[in-house]
């Protein structure tokens, strides 16, 4: 199909003697949801931070829309259209939804010393964007703390999409959520994808990944083990790739395939 928006080739990241990533290749296209699966300690966090500009890779190439890039800060990545929604750092609970939504990019009105936030505009747009994502706010001044975990993720996703993210990196957005909230977040991911955003969905939950993913890449011990398209890989195969095969097969036998 189309060329990838974000393309990472043979990314390596060393911290002193520790090799956190030893050759990760990954790409995401517009309008697709590419799931990155990995167990705890597989290197997911390091890889996210490399994509979002927190760490510079030790080795490897990163391209955005075909152009090589070297991000020096999260802000630089954001400017290039790569937005990251962190699991528990998405929102500031004591602040209102509207203030959170516009944080760092507040619309202003007035001149000189009388320059102030245009709350009328900010609130109206926030309200509208939230409704589009399926959250009916009581009022835009509602504190984020009153929202559920799933709703907070949704606000963060809506914010990234509204501000023109081309690639949206979601760090375990569903791992702390209940069933219903998970369903809401997955449908939010679907909405973002339909708007043409390339979604990188990081998770260790195979079922959540299979629910929305178009492609699947498994990360194990700092390496990618190849990418599979939707329909070409089963949940069992993904599961055992994540765990590194053997041990899990033994475990599964004893647990009666319930993992």
């Amino acid at each position: 199909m189309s060329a990838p928006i974000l393309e990472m080739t043979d990314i390596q990241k060393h911290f002193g003697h520790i090799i956190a990533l030893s050759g990760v290749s990954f790409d995401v296209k517009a309008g697709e949801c590419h799931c990155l699966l990995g167990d705890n300690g597989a290197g997911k966090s390091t890889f996210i931070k490399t994509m979002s500009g927190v760490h510079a890779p030790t080795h490897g190439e990163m391209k955005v829309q075909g152009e090589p890039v070297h991000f020096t800060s999260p802000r630089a990545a954001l400017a290039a259209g790569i937005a990251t929604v962190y699991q528990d750092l998405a929102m500031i609970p004591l602040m209102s939804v509207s203030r959170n939504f516009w944080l760092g990019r507040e619309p202003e009105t007035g001149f000189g010393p009388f320059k102030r936030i245009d709350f009328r505009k900010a609130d109206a747009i926030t309200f509208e964007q939230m409704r589009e994502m399926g959250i009916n706010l009581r009022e835009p001044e509602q504190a984020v703390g009153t929202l559920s975990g799933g709703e907070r993720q949704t606000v963060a996703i809506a914010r990234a999409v509204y501000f023109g993210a081309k690639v949206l990196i979601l760090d375990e957005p569903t791992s702390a959520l209940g069933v219903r909230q998970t369903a809401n977040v997955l449908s939010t991911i679907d909405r973002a994808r339909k708007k043409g955003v390339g979604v990188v969905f990081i998770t260790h939950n195979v079922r959540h990944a299979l629910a929305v993913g178009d492609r699947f890449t498994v990360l194990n011990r700092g390496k990618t083990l190849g990418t599979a398209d939707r329909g070409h890989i089963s949940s069992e195969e993904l599961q055992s790739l994540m765990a590194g095969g053997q041990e899990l097969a033994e475990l599964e036998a004893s647990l009666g395939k319930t993992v």
Partner: protein
Amino acid sequence: MTTTTGADERIKHTSILRRALVRPELGAMGGTVAVFAFFLILAGNTQMFALDGVLNWGTVSAQFVVLAVGVSLLMITGEFDLSLGSMVGFSGMIFGLLAVYVGLPAWAAIGVTVLACGLIGAVNGLLVIRTGLPSFIVTLAFMFILRGLTIWSAITFNKQPVVSGIADISAGDPIAWLFGGKALGGLFVWLGEQGWIATYTRGTRLGRPIVDGIPMLMIWALVMVIVGQWVLTRTRFGNWIYAAGGDPQAARYIGVPVARVKVAMFIVAALCATLLGISQAVEFGSAASDRGMMKEFEAIICVVIGGALLTGGYGSVVGAALGAVIFGVVQQGLFFTNVESSLFRVFLGSILLAAVIANTYIRRAITGER
């Protein structure tokens, strides 16, 4: 951009009470009303609510307000500055020594003092940011350093802890009147002539009003509260102040320059203390090395009564100012009612505890934590 009525209907379900409850100033407003009611009943027939009585507790309140504005903004960014009381003494002393011993004109001494103290505020802030240490411990160190320097410099240059002779230097200075003078003098003379306020009935000041103006510090306090609240609640920078205190890491990820915001608020708080220090020096005509003792804690109490959370991210300048007024009214009111003044501390401790507990519940109501 039309909002449908379907979503709007739910606004009505937020009770007015609940909306008011999540406003940080609410507790302080209630407290202010209660304190005034209390003293109107107990001291309504004393001089407390006559014009000179009002100016008496008004001036004391203004001193607390000036500090509380800076402390509230700093506390909302999630930091403390325990060196502010020492800064009050330090700034007054630097100003006094520069004016009296170096011989600078008052305006230049004020300028140098403001620069030096702003710089110390920045050092405090940068140390906290760079080391990642709690501001509590870094500024506790500066509380001792600044107090020590204040006493040392007074003794070294002056051989005694009080530097006097500032009045002669600040008289007729182009800007010193801003810190120690009185405003609206003409208005008060006119009010006296109209017979609306008390005037002297004998002596050399016959016919002049007893209260001859509003202390400049009250004007400063009023302007600072208005500007502070406006910046905090209406501007982009104010939004960053809340964010820096609410969750610095999340704010940083979204592109808020958290370190800059925090350092700026350390500077603002230091300058508020400097304003108080210079004002007192000009007002009294002297600088004393023990000025501002305990002021850092008193200001924190004002801010907490005003509804700010000690953990940052929540609070209001208006609330802090009301907390300061409660503080000033009670401190001076006990004098008018002849209540033993040591009970003032009992009152302070109790109200502080009550405010902190109330604030914790309010935070839970906002964030839905259990």
